């Protein structure tokens, strides 16, 4: 038999239990986990960079900064262009002053604290420019390491940051081997290239692609076999950056060189 005291106690326990809805216990649903992982959509954005065509004008960097409200004078950028100068004695000199926001207008190579380095034209074996941006990897390590789910990949392959959910731990910044992430100078959350998601989703191209006068940058859908970018990637010799990290980067490079970091 139950006395009153015990009855009250049990009622309290049951009521307490009811306050916590079952849904609170669900962190994730394993069935959805499997069902949706292999569901491939019709679109998967990829990027193609033709190193041969780049002249280092930096219009892409400028357009990106304005289009995406990346603080103009802050020393961070969503996309940038690197200059590689290889001397006859095998030395590789690299720079990207202000991310090439104002292009490359001087022959002096910016070695940061080590000063400006002047290489005589006759000592240069080769010189070229390499545009860089987020690789929107198939296995994005930055997304894997986000502790709260503030960064994620969309079905069409774009890696985005939820600015309202980022706690600013910087783990994603450390997790990216390509150095594409940084902290937004005003919002203090992780920031990166969105592949101009707002433009792609209304049928436009990214701001950097539209700004490039030489066709060095192109964006395409790898799931569409008729897409000219897809045709190049599938039929020509293309390369990716830092393949050894297993990130499966989706920015492809035509004419890349072994010196490219």
């Amino acid at each position, binding site marked *: 038999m139950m006395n009153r005291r015990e009855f009250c106690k049990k009622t309290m326990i049951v009521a307490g239990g009811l306050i916590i809805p079952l849904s609170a216990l669900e*962190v994730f649903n394993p069935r959805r986990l499997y069902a949706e992982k292999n569901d491939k959509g019709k679109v998967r954005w990829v990027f193609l960079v033709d190193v041969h065509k780049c002249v280092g004008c930096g219009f892409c960097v400028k357009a990106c900064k304005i289009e995406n409200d990346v603080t103009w004078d*802050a*020393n*961070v*950028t969503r996309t*940038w262009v*690197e200059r590689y100068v290889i001397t006859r004695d095998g030395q*590789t*000199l*690299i*720079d*990207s002053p*202000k*991310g090439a926001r104002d292009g490359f207008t001087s022959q002096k190579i910016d*070695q*940061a*604290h*080590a000063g400006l380095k002047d290489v005589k034209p006759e000592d240069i074996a080769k010189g070229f420019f390499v545009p*860089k941006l987020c690789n929107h990897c198939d296995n994005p*390590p930055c997304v*894997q*390491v*986000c*502790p*709260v*789910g*503030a960064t994620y990949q969309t079905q069409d392959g774009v890696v985005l940051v939820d600015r309202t*959910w*980022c*706690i*600013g*731990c*910087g*783990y994603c*910044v*450390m*997790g*990216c*081997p*390509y*150095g*594409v*992430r*940084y*902290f937004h*100078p005003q919002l*203090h*959350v992780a920031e990166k290239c969105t592949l101009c998601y707002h433009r792609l989703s209304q049928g436009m191209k990214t701001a950097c692609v539209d700004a490039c006068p030489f066709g060095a940058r192109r964006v395409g859908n790898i799931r569409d076999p008729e897409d000219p970018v897809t045709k190049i990637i599938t039929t020509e010799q293309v390369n990716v950056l830092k393949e*050894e*990290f*297993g990130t499966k980067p989706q920015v492809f490079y035509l004419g890349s060189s072994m010196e490219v*970091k």
Partner: protein
Amino acid sequence: MVHGEAWTLKEFFVYPNEYIYWSIQIVMYPFMTGLVAGAFVLSSLYHVFGVKQLKDIARFSLVFSLALLPVAMMPLMLHLQQPQRGIYVMMTPHFTSAIAAFGIVFTTYGLIVASEIWFVYRQFIVETVLELRAKQQKTAVESARLFLYSLLSMGAMDLSPEALHKDERAVGILAGIGIPVACFLHGYAGFIFGSVKANALWMTPLMPVIFICSAVVSGIALCIVTYIITMEIRKLIFARKRRNNPRLPSTEELKSAEIQVVTMTAKYLVMFLVLAITLELLDLIFRTYTAVKSWDILRSVIYERDFFKIFILQYGLGNVVPFIIFLRPGLTIRRALVGTLLVLMGVFMMRWNVVIGGQAFSASFSGFMEYQLPIWPSTLELFKEGLFGALSVIITPFVLFFLVTRILPVFGIKDSH
């Protein structure tokens, strides 16, 4: 200004967005967590393995690990760009991230430590409550204490031998569970670094183990240091009190008890120190021998740029010198103090060399970054990630320890009042 720009000095080619994003507070984080874990393991050596010689320091280090606990959290909160969102780690945990389980592991560990302390102190709490209740006339302070201790007792007033025996068993079980959890908490901090594949210096499976070993080393060292300091203060106080009460233990008695505890604890310190150094050297030798792509830049960081910090401060002064100090026979209090302080410095430098050293080179392997510790806190950011932020993290556990010991004294519970 971009986060990180204020204290990062770049040289040669570094990607435009690369800065030293993880600065002094991330050095403090594993250092403080290590101290927590180490202090707890030390107390468990007595509670679980029954190492009788450590009885005196066991209670001490248990309370100390409670005082350190909130401080392991502090550097993270100071480091986060959005500290008010820190709770999201518990709300939408993304377990593929090494950081995601931190909130859960940390809370579990905190609850274990708190419960263990409750069982250890229950008798004392209940006795205090009874004593205070018995008093007819209570001052305001005494009433407040009565309320506090009644709350702490959680209504469990049973002091029968069976009940006390149950307390003891609970302490044993909790300490037993606590050891793996403490190791997990800290090995986990090692995993946070070891699993970053983008960082050539950090990525090694040895990282968690190295972190645990050096954590235990630093935890024991800090317990010895604090123990010595508290004992010295007690000696002074007792010397003054003895004039009125000759029955109190003499300075000599205290000293012999002290050196015995210190010698015993130092043995465990040396044991874990050997283990830690072995693993660290293994890692270094392995990297030198295999010399993969990243080795060129790592070599110039380890053997050139950070040589003083790694080989002089960390291995030399922080490991070899204390090793000699502890192994020479006839350990004195002063030598033990010097040795343990050097060990603490050595472990701190190890954290520094891992966290800052791991960011001393660009992911392009073509340039270097130098961390310039912000001294003067002219902005909030420079305070948080500068010298004064780090100092406040170091001071807080001692303040907390002082406050906690006002409520739960660690020495001579029976004769302290």
